[in-house]
């Protein structure tokens, strides 16, 4: 196995292993940039990752300060190879940054000024989901050897897999907590019904009506009212106007 193959194998193993308790997306992006920058003939690598909802900017990092500036540059102007790779989900390249480019009029000059001759941007994707881009910068102009392109794609694909799995995992966790909280709230409503029924000497149906009337009268959710009844911070009386009536009549 060639040195590059071994590098790629190591990158794939690392970048797909995202369901770990201490996962940190910034660290993940840094590692991806490091793997990209380690490929033969590559001077620097930049990584862009979107927010889980697809918004940019999410994470922007790079293996050199110059490449980081180029990443920020593209985000600010919403223009450049990484932006295109992210938007289209395809491999976007500028093998020669000399001369004008209608796609990114300002980017090419800036990249050349930073000392790069060529840029190759690979999407971080899994199936139809593109989550970011890996940009590989070469010092000299020219097409990348096929083997390096293949290695770059493998690394970018591995990152796409890892990112997609992590996002799904995070979303599942978020939904699970949401559901558990909703069940809690449901339980508390029943507890409040019982508590009020006992305290007011009414049946649980009437107790529920009390909770609901208070919630409506105070523009609050019934779950919140129930929680406060149960923690002892609220003994619900009906809405404001009825309270005044009651006060006047001395009840």
């Amino acid at each position, binding site marked *: 196995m060639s040195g590059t193959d071994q590098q790629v194998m190591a990158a794939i193993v690392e970048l797909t292993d995202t*369901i770990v*308790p201490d996962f940190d997306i910034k660290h993940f992006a840094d590692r991806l940039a490091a793997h990209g920058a380690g490929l033969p003939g590559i001077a620097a690598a930049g990584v862009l990752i979107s927010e889980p909802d697809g918004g940019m900017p999410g994470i922007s990092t790079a293996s050199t300060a110059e490449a980081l500036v180029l990443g920020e540059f593209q985000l600010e102007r919403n223009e450049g190879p990484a932006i295109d790779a992210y938007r289209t989900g395809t491999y976007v390249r500028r093998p020669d940054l000399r001369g004008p480019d209608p796609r990114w009029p300002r980017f090419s000059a800036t990249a050349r000024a930073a000392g790069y001759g060529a840029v190759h941007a690979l999407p971080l994707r899994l199936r139809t989901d593109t989550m970011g881009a890996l940009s590989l910068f070469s010092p000299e102009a020219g097409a990348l050897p096929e083997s390096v392109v293949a290695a770059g794609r493998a690394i970018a694909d591995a990152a796409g897999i890892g990112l997609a799995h992590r996002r799904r*995992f995070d979303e*599942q*966790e978020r*939904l*699970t*907590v949401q*559901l*558990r*909280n909703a*069940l*809690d709230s*449901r*339980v508390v409503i*029943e*507890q*409040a*019904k*019982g*508590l*009020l*029924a*006992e*305290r007011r000497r009414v049946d*649980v149906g009437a107790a529920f009506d009390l909770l609901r009337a208070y919630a409506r009268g105070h523009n609050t959710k019934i779950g919140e009212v129930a929680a406060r009844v*149960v923690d002892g911070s609220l003994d619900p009386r009906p809405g404001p106007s009825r309270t005044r009536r009651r006060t006047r009549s001395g009840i």
Partner: protein
Amino acid sequence: MDGTRGAHIWTIIHVLAREEHETVSIRHTVQVCARVLSAGGAGLAMMREDGEAEPLYAIGPGTEALEEMQYALGEGPGAEVAGSGVPVLAADLRTDRAARRWPRFSREAARQGTAAAFAFPVGAGAALLGVLSAYRSTPGGLGGDALADALTCADAAFVLALDERGGINSDLWDLIEAAFAERRGEVHQAAGMVTAQLGVDLTAAFVVLRNHAYTHGRRLSDVAADVTAGRLRFGPARHDAAGTDRGAGGRPADGGREIP
């Protein structure tokens, strides 16, 4: 996990739903779990954010009572999964080890003729959504395929529970509402009533209810029904000068008073 076995389980789930002329639902994953484990009973409990587990659905005679007791006492294979998120496989509930680990659960299981119990986490990683359990009348462990199949059922339950396409997890919510209408609503109402009757917090009130139930060999939900119907009230137990408990005739020492 073998992808083809997973697909096989999903196929069984879909076929079962189709036989009932229904869309695939969480209930079907529980039923298929019982089937693939050759279990006479199976149940699903859901975790609350406060860490307690709420039994929601059970099939097979006696399963509902066993699940209710297990999660009320925090004792049993399912209760352990609720705490750890790791599967618990009890191939023989009649051993000394099982009796030491789960004294009240194993006694109730024996009373019901349940000899083995297997409980699986429903969730992904750290966030546990629930527990899927299966109960068998004959002892014996699970073969590798059966274990994988049960885990697939648990995974299927998780996927379906999180599915929002039917409108805000309507399938899961139907299960919750059904359970609350049946028995669980009364359990929590009763706890609320006891809170007011005894002037204690909800946790203590729940402990009073469950201790009363299991001391008297009754189901928690039956005791709860008596409380919400006014047939059973709890008041502070009276003490004489020496500080011992004195109950009036027919009044249990925990202060629970039967109303004729």
